[in-house]
């Protein structure tokens, strides 16, 4: 284990994440302008989507593929429910629902980092998990809101006009990143190996390097939020820091374990099992917060967004991936 741990910790991607975090804590003015970060994330979604589509096109849609997608959707539907039950003891209803949706959904960058981890140690994984990832982005949002409405009585978020369900579904399923991933996936699937040959120099070759740059930015951003968090106590709306820290890690471990067990149950390969696990363990900090701002304006992004971005994300890419990989190996042997 220590090996994969180290090889993960010393991978360029992780080291650039640490560099970003260091820069923030050292109060360096290092900064990746927003449009640059946007460009890199667009690139990553575009590339991972297309590559996944090509992979799908080469392997016939087998029962295992469908099983994986089913498992992914199942996780997206079930995880938010028990998460809600747990965290509603610690946070307000609105915040609990938002956290449930956030952790039921996924983090594309965590997924990409996991695939990068597998590629580096030469373990294969199925392209259909890109589809699984895209499919897992949205459902939790609906579940989370449903839980909230059940708990508060429909329309409790009435102050201001109420979010029409259709509006929410659009926000959820037509979120920019979801459309980009699924669209690229479809296009890659249609073009197959042919298309990959055409685009490989952009979407394959520089991929690892672009991920490094993006994780550099993620390090900056996550650390900034952690800092805001620790300095926020003065303000009125300061969130319960320790509770956030603990829940952020606990939820990652719990959800990851659930994903791992499910993966084992349906007998996924080593690589696929890790991907499903990390999808389950990861939390969304783009699609879901966007929808929550809309659906649950009362929920405090300083809680659910910070937990997903500044606590769960770093935990997953630094400890989660090698840890769960280790556990998967134990289970397999």
């Amino acid at each position, binding site marked *: 284990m220590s090996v994969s741990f180290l090889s993960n910790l010393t991978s360029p991607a992780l080291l650039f994440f640490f560099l970003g975090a260091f820069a923030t804590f050292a109060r360096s003015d290092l*900064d*990746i*302008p*927003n449009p640059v*970060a*946007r460009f890199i*994330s667009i690139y990553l979604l575009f590339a991972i989507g297309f590559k996944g589509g090509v992979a799908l096109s080469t392997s016939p849609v087998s029962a295992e593929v469908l099983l994986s997608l089913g498992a992914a959707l199942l996780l997206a539907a079930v995880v938010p429910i028990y998460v809600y039950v747990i965290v509603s003891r610690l946070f307000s209803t609105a915040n609990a629902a938002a956290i449930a949706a956030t952790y039921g959904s996924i983090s594309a960058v965590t997924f990409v980092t996991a695939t990068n981890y597998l590629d580096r140690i030469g373990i294969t994984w199925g392209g259909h998990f890109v589809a699984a990832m895209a499919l897992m982005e949205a459902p939790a949002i609906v579940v989370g809101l449903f839980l909230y409405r059940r708990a508060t009585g429909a329309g409790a978020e009435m*102050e*201001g*006009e109420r979010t029409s369900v259709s509006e929410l579904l659009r926000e959820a399923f037509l979120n*920019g990143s979801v459309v980009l991933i699924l669209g690229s996936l479809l296009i890659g699937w249609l073009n197959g190996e042919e298309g990959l040959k055409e685009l490989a120099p952009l979407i394959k070759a520089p991929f690892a390097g672009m991920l490094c740059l993006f994780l550099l*930015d*993620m390090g900056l*951003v996550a650390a*900034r939020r952690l800092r*805001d968090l620790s300095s926020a106590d003065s*303000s009125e*709306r300061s969130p319960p820091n320790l509770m956030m820290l603990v829940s952020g890690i606990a939820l990652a471990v719990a959800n990851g374990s659930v994903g791992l067990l499910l993966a084992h149950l349906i007998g996924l390969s080593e690589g696929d099992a890790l991907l499903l696990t990390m999808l389950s363990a990861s939390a969304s*900090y*783009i699609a879901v*917060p*966007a929808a929550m*701002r*809309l659906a649950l*304006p009362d929920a*405090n*992004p*300083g809680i659910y*967004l910070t937990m997903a*971005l500044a606590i769960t994300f770093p935990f997953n890419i630094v400890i989660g991936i090698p840890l769960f990989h280790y556990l998967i190996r134990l289970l397999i042997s």
Partner: protein
Amino acid sequence: MRPCKRLEIVIERSQTHRLEAALKAAGVSGFTVIQNAGGSGDRGYRRADDVTDTDENCVFIVAVEGDAVLEQLIAGVRPILKRFGGVCLVSDAQWLIH
């Protein structure tokens, strides 16, 4: 130059279309939007330079003539601010007619 009211509305970027609709509804066809603003308020600190695209504000500048329009506009803007947060400042100004 004609006297007018200058509205300055700060709102979450993702709600731009809502505010534009409210402007249209109030019969206001002229406005300016400044993108890529950050800020801080009741809903905490917002960074314009953030990977989570939700965390960005934009600033609307609207010049309107006549209290009727103003009233209507405010009536349309208030619920949006109530729901999604933000601020709306109204001040007097002179409109240079060209």
